[in-house]
């Protein structure tokens, strides 16, 4: 999966979790929580969907690394390649 494909995959997950939100103006370097109505249960949904769709386990200690879209990509890219 290329970095751009990974980006689309992550945005797809977030769009499914927050179907009422518009992601057109999302700043990839700003915290997701500050830009869209993402609560702690939604965040757990992201972790669950990464597990279900891509077999990636994100341990709780790594949750801060999923704070922005770009940090998600940085964190997930090597892990998905490994899989």
């Amino acid at each position, binding site marked *: 999966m290329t970095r751009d494909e990974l980006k689309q995959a992550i945005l797809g997950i977030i769009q499914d979790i927050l179907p009422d939100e518009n992601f057109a103006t999302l700043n990839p370097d700003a915290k997701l929580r500050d830009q869209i109505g993402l609560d702690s*249960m939604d965040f757990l949904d992201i972790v669950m969907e990464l*597990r279900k769709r891509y077999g990636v386990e994100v341990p709780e200690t790594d949750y801060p690394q999923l704070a922005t879209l770009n940090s998600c990509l940085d964190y997930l890219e090597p892990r998905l390649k490994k899989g």
Partner: protein
Amino acid sequence: MRKPSERIVITGVGLAAPNGDSLAAFRASLLHGVSGVERYTIRYFGETLAGVCHFDPLRYQKRKDLRCGTRAGSIAIYAANEAVRDARLDWAAVAKPRVGVYLGITEHGTVETEHEIYEISKYNYDIKYWSHYHNPRTVANNPAGEVTLNLGITGPHYTLGGACAAGNLGCIQGYQQLLLGEVDVALAGGVSESIQSFGIFAGFKSQGALAEHADPAKASRPFDLKRNGIVIAEGGAVFVMERLSDALARGATIVAEIAGYAVNSDATDFVLPNSERQGECIASAIARAGLEPKDIHLVNTHATGTRMGDIQECQALRRVFGPGCRDTYFNNTKSFIGHAMGAAGVLELAGNLPALQDRVVHPTINVDELDPECALPNLVLNQPAAAPRLDTILNTSFGMVGINSVLIVKRYQP
């Protein structure tokens, strides 16, 4: 005569029925013989029949709410918002800590648990795929709690588990809390999401009590000799209830006044009804309303389309409503929509409320050959009937493990 602060009235009605998304639409279907039963397929069980609602949940919820919440919550939110609207409450000005939400449920959590188990079955039953939403979805207060989240209500909310007698229980609870002064506005009623549980269909099937018919509209046929069981339905109804003094002060339109109620237990069997206890419950409600049986003009029966249940209820009704009750008419709503479980009592009562104005009794449909054991006098069959007097309506609702509930409303008279 009770003081206005001690009289409780219904000032708004919201509902989701399989054959109508509003009281007006539901009533029209009941008067024109329109069924809400359709073919329905559910996992494991396969093809069956059900009463399915078609209201638009996005009228009052966002798509994320639907993803996180439950069907019962969605039905409750729709009905509660419709009721608030119907009551013409100035919602922004209503003191939210003084609003209570009281909803009857037959069960809750069954649907959500079945769904989670199905989901993890795709992952070899590995529980790390079990949703973190499982607990907030399955707590017993969920449907009422979702209403408070949606409407910003900060007063009390809870559900009342009462099997198929639960719809009346929600209203009775609202009545009591208003009388106690615990709240100023009660959103009271009942909801059912039961058609999403394969286990409920399978349970009735194993019991030999699930209706089958080539024509879905003819499957639910209480009192008919060819009945063969229950059609399961989803749905809900919520009333706005207030003390009469408050309703008059804000110039509300009064739909009906709560006249009386009773709840009792059979203490005899898990499943089989007890005609004597049912009769005692009906008689007790009438006495507590300060009425006599002859003063009841319409009885909306519980009858579900099982032979034993229908006959037992008719025996109870005969015991209470003797030859002197010439103005008492009987009907049944399940013949149109199936059995809406926790919503049944309040939803069926709602469909009859307009009769206080138009004096028309909607029929029970699908009676081609009336079971002689169910031949009640003034049982309104297949076509609506005009009643000479219609000042009072009594609703019966009975449930498993032997719970009976009866609610009586009357036309408001100053």
